[in-house]
């Protein structure tokens, strides 16, 4: 974090032009050295493996160092269905990642629940964590994933470097009813029988 903080604190003192240059240099570094954390839960994880492996070769985009610790990663790739049982884990892993951090919703299940519109599947991870790039497909091809990765790189290139140190809230959809304050379940109100 030192470098970004250094630049971020100094920007007040330097001329506007230099400010832009610093911004571009930092973003150039960030966009070409992403460290992905593959939160691979389902079928999309297999296609993510396909993207990493030799035929498609993710290292051409500078993002091949897959980290399995959220503290070492800055790109969270949610590849697969997120169930309500998994949701607290995903939230915790996102919270454990250091800023700056980005999220790709890999596949329709992560982006919207996909065709699993049911009692068990979260209808899109953007109800829990903010998402930078939504990638459709069930599962998306490795090429589609690279498209998303390039889209993310372009997005990073246009960012203000201080942006990541402001407080972030999940970008909830208008119809979403949760920001992780889980609504209490009242079985009687919802007509669910407890059974025996």
């Amino acid at each position, binding site marked *: 974090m030192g470098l970004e903080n250094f630049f971020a604190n100094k920007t007040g003192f330097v001329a506007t032009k230099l400010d832009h240059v610093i911004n571009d240099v930092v973003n150039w570094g960030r966009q070409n050295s992403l460290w992905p954390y593959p939160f691979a839960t389902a079928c999309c994880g297999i296609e993510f493996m396909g993207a990493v492996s030799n035929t498609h070769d993710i290292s051409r985009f500078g993002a091949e160092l897959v980290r399995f610790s959220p503290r070492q990663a800055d790109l969270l790739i949610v590849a697969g269905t997120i169930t309500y049982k998994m949701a607290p884990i995903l939230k915790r892993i996102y919270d454990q990642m250091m800023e700056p951090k980005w999220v790709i919703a890999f596949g329709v299940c992560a982006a919207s629940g996909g065709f699993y519109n049911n009692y068990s599947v979260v209808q899109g991870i953007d109800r829990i964590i903010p998402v930078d790039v939504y990638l459709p497909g069930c599962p998306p091809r490795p090429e589609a994933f690279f498209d998303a990765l390039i889209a993310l790189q372009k997005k990073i290139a246009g960012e203000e470097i201080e942006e990541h140190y402001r407080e972030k809230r999940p970008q909830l959809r208008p119809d979403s009813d949760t920001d992780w304050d889980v609504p209490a379940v009242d079985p009687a109100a919802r007509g669910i*029988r407890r059974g025996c």
Partner: protein
Amino acid sequence: MVSTIDTVESLRAQFPDAKFRVEPTADMATVVVERGNLVPAMQFLRDEPSLGFGFLVDLSAVDGLKLEDDWPDRFQVVYHLLNMDSGNALRVKVAISESDCTLPSLVGLWRSADWMEREVFDLFGISFEGHPNLKRIMTHHEFVGHALRKDYNIQDGQWLGETESLMDEIGEYGENPADGGFSELIPINIGPAHPATHGTLRFFGKLDGETLVKVAPEIGYLHRGFEKHCETGSWTMVIPYTDRLNYCSAMLNNVGWCHTVEKMIGVEVPERTQYIRVIISELSRIIDHCVCIGAMLVDLGALTNFWYLFNLRERVYQIMEELCGARLTSTYVRIGGVAYDLNPEFIGQVREILKEIPKGVGDVLGLIKKNRIFLDRTIGVGVISKEDAVNYSWTGPCLRATGVDYDVRKAKPYYQYADLDWDVPTRTNGDVHDRALIRFDEIVQSMRIIEQALDRIPGGPVMSDDKRVQLPEKEDVYGSIEGLMNHFVLVYDGIKVPAGEAYHSIEAANGELGFYVVSDGSGRPYRVRCRPPCFTLLSAFSEIVEGSMIADAVPTLGSLNIIAGELDR
């Protein structure tokens, strides 16, 4: 060969006071027993040498809420038994009412019943008396209601506040009482987001130094409601969901589902389609084994093998994509046939791949076969005996690695497997080494099957001409009233399956993939139960690894090839 009558007669002779009702079902014998006699009757069926139903294939339940006229009691719990020597199958059913839905547990007879009963408890709310650990397994612990009951709305999702601690399953930790408090027992959590779990499993364990004293697995992190979804659409609309059961070999699941439905309707698929299904099944099996071996070797630190094997996988993906337009989730098989005929290049491409597979597999075998690290870390690790494997209802390569030569393709041959010349490879030690190498043996056998199938594949149509499953030709639709009606009914109502129930299975990459289906005669399934091979494999995991080093638990898990999609459904 023991007939149904003999089975029931011997049951009646053994239990003269009890009532046993025989139901007419086409796929196997069905006996309805009373709740009080369940355990003694099951024990008799298992232990009586002339019957020998020693294998509990599946345990599930059906909610008869919408079938009230036919079902005096709301629930039926269904047990599928198998005699592995003769191939005889038996279905045992118990009817229980909603007000008193408890059953005696069968954990004392089959340990695989442990998890299966937990699943029935979770999704139907049927409790099992005498079960050691009757907790929810698929849905989370704060879930209210039972999802597979017919009165549970499919879209009623419930958020989870906090993950279950699982402390109750591992017991006390801290000072170790076994050695007078000299050492310390430490709790350890692995997963559900951990690279060694290959998906979404969680293990909560207790360590003494590096030795695992107790392990409590938690699954259900990828429970996507497959079985509930099947009840909402038509019979054909289930096919895309089956792709995502075992997503490493999607075609095999397609074949399994369509095979079951075709058997229920009584449709015979054309010979060309049967050969196509054999070829794509075996190709899927090969790439599934590639992922399993590759991922397991990555856990042991051998990354190179993974690239070698993934090369093969990419090659197969390429031709799958040319065949049906999708790499992974193909939805290629249809009820009554397949979606399209083979593209003209397909057979040549498969022949080329058959030349590449020995090279890729040979490279990997050359790296590991005499590799000291691989041998030290796998031989004698994660051993399970033949008897335990059967008691845990293991199937597939993992069972065959213990020395049991049970393979659905030989035991209940479907399609052309009976005519083709191939062997069921077995090994004897039942350790990680054998479970890994038997997959190489199976790749060789699959290649033999594909070669013969490519030589023999005939021409002809790829869809059955049966009017119950196949849309009529366009000229018939526009030219004749029968064709128009047929088209209209098929499009509006979907394929109709006669009322009844059936269990059919195929040999998927991990073992027996079965579908137990109940139809009420309408255009949509009433109840679909998938018997996933992984589920029983993983239920034995904690017993295998308890007492071993924690580092050995990782390759043991890798060798079981747990695919969360079919484990949790």
